[in-house]
């Protein structure tokens, strides 16, 4: 099932989106470019500020780690040099995550499992907020089951019995921009995981008839991200059609 997206659910931020998949729900809000504090000002590019807020409790080391990973990922697509001495603020609110923060999932798994949702929500909000991007980007979670089988975008049941978990994000050219893994796996498995993940990521915003994954008639490979964004543009221009 493709992820469920709501574009612009909030009124105050410049761009916002909610992203829901089988495991998590994340609400993202983007503001920018804004005035930046002297302390964080960069002379030649925009400062990218990321806040991750957990569903329950206050943010701790776990959230700081997620922020650090997201900063590196988003920094690679946001055209920061377009807005020197400005601030682009990305706030992410986790609304729902698997097993309430990884309680039943073992150490480190909950964090990795929620990463793809955070990345996807942030990208959708950035596009909605009109922040200049170098290109598209999407992320996906891959689980390796007990028998070595790969599951793309797994459900909670798969998550509990899996050997390893991989959160992978790919940019439009196919370049790997995020790879966070946890569990036991070897290089061969990891290579396979990355290949499958890359396919799934690129399929999210592939244009019709362009990508091979589409030709295979794979149901999972529906370009959901493209559909959502195109829908929004069409809605925004609807008044043009009627006049």
């Amino acid at each position, binding site marked *: 099932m493709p992820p469920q997206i709501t574009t612009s659910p*909030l*009124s105050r931020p410049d761009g916002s989106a909610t992203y829901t998949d089988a495991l998590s729900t994340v609400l993202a809000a983007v503001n920018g470019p*804004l005035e930046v504090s002297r302390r964080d000002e960069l002379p030649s590019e925009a400062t990218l500020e990321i806040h991750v807020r957990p569903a*329950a*409790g206050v943010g701790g080391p776990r959230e700081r780690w997620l922020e650090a990973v997201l900063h590196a990922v988003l920094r690679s697509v946001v055209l920061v040099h377009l807005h020197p001495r400005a601030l682009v603020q990305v706030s992410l*609110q986790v*609304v*729902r995550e698997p097993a309430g923060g990884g309680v039943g999932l073992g150490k480190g798994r909950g964090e990795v499992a929620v990463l793809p949702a955070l990345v996807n929500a942030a990208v959708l909000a950035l596009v909605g907020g009109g922040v200049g991007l170098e290109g598209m980007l999407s992320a996906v979670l891959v689980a390796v089951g007990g028998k070595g089988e790969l599951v793309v975008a797994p459900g909670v049941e798969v998550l509990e019995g899996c050997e390893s978990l991989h959160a992978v994000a790919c940019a439009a050219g196919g370049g790997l921009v995020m790879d966070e893994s946890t569990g036991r796996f070897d290089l061969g498995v990891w290579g396979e995981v990355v290949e499958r993940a890359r396919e799934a990521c690129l399929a999210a915003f592939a244009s019709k008839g362009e990508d091979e994954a589409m030709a295979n008639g794979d149901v999972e490979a529906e370009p959901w991200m493209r559909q959502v964004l195109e829908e929004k543009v069409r809605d925004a221009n609807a008044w043009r059609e009627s006049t």
Partner: protein
Amino acid sequence: MPREAEPSNNAKAFLLQALRENVRLDGRAFDEFRQIDLSFGDEYGVATARLGKTKVMVRVSSEVVKASADRKFDGVFTISTELSPIASPAFEVGRQDQAEVLLSRILEKTIRRSGALDTESLCIIAGQKCFHVRADVHVLDHDGSLVDASCLALVAALMHYRRPDFEVRGEEVQIFDPREREPIKLSMQHQPFCVTFGYYEDGSVMLLDSTLLEEQCREGEVMISMNRFGEICQIAKYSGEPVDAMSVLNCMNVALEKVKVFDKLVKAKLEEDEKRRDVGGLMAELSAENAR
């Protein structure tokens, strides 16, 4: 340091002139709330309240902790309010805004100190183990009346939440997974709600459910919390111009009417949600068994 943008002189003057002529910018009556909307999440204890554009989500969760030494027969209940840039870019992470202090103070007084949640029922073994119930208030969109909306969402979330069931065998405590045993509702003693009155023109105009612009232009505010029986939990008036005692008494009567509306709304929505969950008629089956 980011700040909420001040309204222009034109807007302030216009708003006050309009109030003198009995007009609100959005066309509401002075004591009329914006459209109230309350919804629950898929999980227990997640409630979202909307007042016009203002949107607050509350999430209630619990864990088992060691009981505190000085309150042996009590569980722990905490409310956390942290305003983030999601609500408005004027809120900064790690810096307590005045709105945040106010919100947490009022919620604390309205819900926690009024004993809305029976903390004794959260005790598992006296002096050793108890539940720690925490409510996280997430303000998602800020267009005024944060306190009223948060209070509504918080009460709804508490009533919606189910804590895991447990069994005590001697010193051993077994906590059941929700899949093993049906989780249990929290025991609430009453349901308090907060109603904020913004006043203008030396207290001659009282507004309910102010928008952000109305809040920025007001002379002061009186916050009244009570339950549907009219039992007052707190009255707060922290700043602004002095206000006539008689008009505060008048406010209380108005507040009671509104609180009754809130109370009905929460109960109706909870019932709706229960019906939605109870697709297979499992609840009916269980209660039928209990009756025997």
